[in-house]
């Protein structure tokens, strides 16, 4: 019986992976690319970690599972509150739950959204969990001690250490960058050690892990890694930083090779990233644009952001910077690229009504006309929520509009004197095209597909490879084009319309929205989302 592993590589892109392979740094990835099937993997409309990973492991799009961002607005009478997105916000079942229902054993390690852990036949420990809270976010909880004893002092690296990560954005000298790379290289190694132990102890049918080091490295060091910037950043110091980063990928290559050797040759391996990566060269102050359009009013106490730099500490109160009585639309977070109607205004304009449609049409037209000082348009695309536009069922967390910036970056939600500001140096940000590599007995060999696979195809593919039934109504079909001919015939994919792919609703109505929001804003700032 075929076993399936999903090895997640947060933020990995072929734009970086292929040159590193060609230069001989990554022998394991060279092997899987030469002997497997590769394709771009198209991320969610806004290619951000929560929406993308949840889409990958539920097989459904954000319109269905309801996750769009690290935080989601919750409507209050007059003003919105922000709430942290965790497993309770995910409306769909995960691939590990679907597998459990069919008697299969699963391991899920370090995926965003899996805390608090969903109960499966196997093991779950989510990502973005501070090390101090690992125990209560481990399922089964008693296994936490086993893992802790196995890892020794390194167990803390399984969790997120915010105080460590804060250091990098508080102005460390270049000479201290090494600590950041080293931290994430060691963390990848601990994820590997944990994976080996979990494979041995649980003997899973489905094994899944996310290595998030690439994303953490690329957000900060992209200009040193991107082949397109090699001439621009070519000083000895720049080259040293690049070499230091490359060591991270070399170590990752070895880590994953160790893991796959332990799994064995009979496993089908899926390597996938939640999004790609690229440079961002400017900051777009979204709420400032809405202010000029007369759709958002700043409060009297609001202050302007420090231009070109990190947000001031007052950012914690950024929702307090808005005068809600006089605001129609707002952008709540810097990672969602999303615009929402304010709650009090939504109550007066019914979804799908002519008034709502006029309002949205008018805003889209205004945004299409937003230009920089040279008259160039700022938004490459403006995506409307057609469900809401036509009054179809719609998740409460869904934005009214998602904007795409011309440089692929994320918006700023701060007040500013300018609407578009050039960055002093290019930084790393997300791109829609991530990676997919299938390697193992069921996959084609030595093929690179044209075009992209949808990120939602991973769940039905995993279920099919594991000889499981697939619920009807998932967003994508099994991507048969990646399967070897014989395997495609043998798999005899079974769709079962009776399987309910939606999760039981769990109340997350604890009144901690302000506290969650503040903590998460610190995390986003650390990860470079906040400008």
């Amino acid at each position, binding site marked *: 019986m075929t076993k399936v592993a999903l090895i997640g590589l947060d933020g990995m892109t072929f734009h970086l992976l292929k040159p590193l392979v060609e230069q001989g740094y990554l022998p394991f990835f060279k092997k899987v690319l030469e002997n497997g099937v590769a394709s771009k993997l198209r991320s969610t409309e806004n290619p951000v970690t929560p929406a993308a990973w949840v889409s990958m492991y539920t097989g459904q799009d954000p319109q269905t599972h309801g996750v769009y961002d690290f935080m989601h607005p919750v409507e209050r009478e007059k003003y919105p509150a922000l709430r942290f997105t965790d497993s309770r916000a995910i409306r769909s079942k995960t691939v590990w739950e679907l597998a459990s229902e069919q008697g299969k054993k699963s391991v899920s390690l370090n995926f965003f959204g899996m805390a608090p852990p969903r109960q499966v036949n196997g093991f779950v420990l989510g990502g973005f969990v*501070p090390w*101090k*809270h*690992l*125990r*209560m976010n481990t399922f089964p909880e008693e296994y936490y001690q086993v893992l*802790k004893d196995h890892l020794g002092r390194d167990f803390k690296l399984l969790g997120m250490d*915010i*105080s460590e990560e804060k250091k990098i954005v508080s102005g460390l000298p270049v000479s201290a960058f090494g600590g950041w790379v080293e931290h994430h290289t060691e963390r990848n190694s601990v994820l590997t050690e944990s994976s080996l132990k979990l494979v041995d102890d649980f003997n899973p049918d489905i094994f899944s892990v996310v290595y998030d080091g690439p994303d953490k490295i690329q957000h900060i060091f992209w200009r040193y890694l991107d082949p397109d910037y090699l001439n621009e950043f070519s000083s000895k110091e720049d080259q040293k930083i690049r070499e230091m980063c490359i060591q991270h990928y070399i170590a990752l290559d070895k880590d994953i090779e160790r893991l796959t050797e332990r799994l064995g040759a009979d496993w089908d391996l899926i390597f996938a990233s939640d999004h790609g990566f690229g440079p961002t060269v400017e900051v777009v102050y979204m709420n400032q644009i809405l202010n000029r359009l007369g759709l958002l009013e700043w409060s009297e106490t609001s202050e302007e952001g420090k231009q070109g730099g990190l947000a001031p500490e*007052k950012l*914690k*109160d950024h929702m*307090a910077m808005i005068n809600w009585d006089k605001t129609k639309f707002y952008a709540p977070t810097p990672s969602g690229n999303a615009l929402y109607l304010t709650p009090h205004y939504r109550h007066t304009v019914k979804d799908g009504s002519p008034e709502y449609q006029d309002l949205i049409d008018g805003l889209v037209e205004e945004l299409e006309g937003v230009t920089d000082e040279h008259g160039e348009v700022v938004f490459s695309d403006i995506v409307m929520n057609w469900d809401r536009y036509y009054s179809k069922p719609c998740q409460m967390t869904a934005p009214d509009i998602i904007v795409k910036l011309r440089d692929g970056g994320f918006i700023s939600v701060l007040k500013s004197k300018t609407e578009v500001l050039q960055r002093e140096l290019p930084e790393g940000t997300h791109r829609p095209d991530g990676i997919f590599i299938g390697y193992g007995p069921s996959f084609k060999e030595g093929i690179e597909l044209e075009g992209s696979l949808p990120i939602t195809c991973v769940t039905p593919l995993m279920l099919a490879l594991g000889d499981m039934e697939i619920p009807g109504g998932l967003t994508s079909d099994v991507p048969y084009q990646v399967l070897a001919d014989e395997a495609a015939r043998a798999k005899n994919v079974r769709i079962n319309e009776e399987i309910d792919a939606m999760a039981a609703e769990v*109340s997350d*109505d*604890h*009144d*901690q929205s*302000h*506290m*969650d929001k*503040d*903590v998460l804003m*610190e995390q986003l700032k650390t990860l470079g989302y906040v400008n």
Partner: protein
Amino acid sequence: MVNQIEKLVIDVINELTQDWDLEDININVDTALGADAGFESLDIVQLVVLIEKKLGNPGIPFESMFMQEGKYIDDVKVGELVTFIVSKTKS
């Protein structure tokens, strides 16, 4: 009721901090969450969630206890937290 809440809060803190490598510390009403037990903002969020869970999610406005003018207050003592919960539970 005070004794029950006190035991519940201390049990939750002990549960939460069991892996934190704290020096031999005996959590009691005089323990300062920040200075003595090393609580940071994320830990306070988790503490509140756990207390709410144990109490059956009564919607106690912990924000008014732990946040003032947008900033975390971490010099809260366990006894003060107990008194706060008791007062809000009664009302």
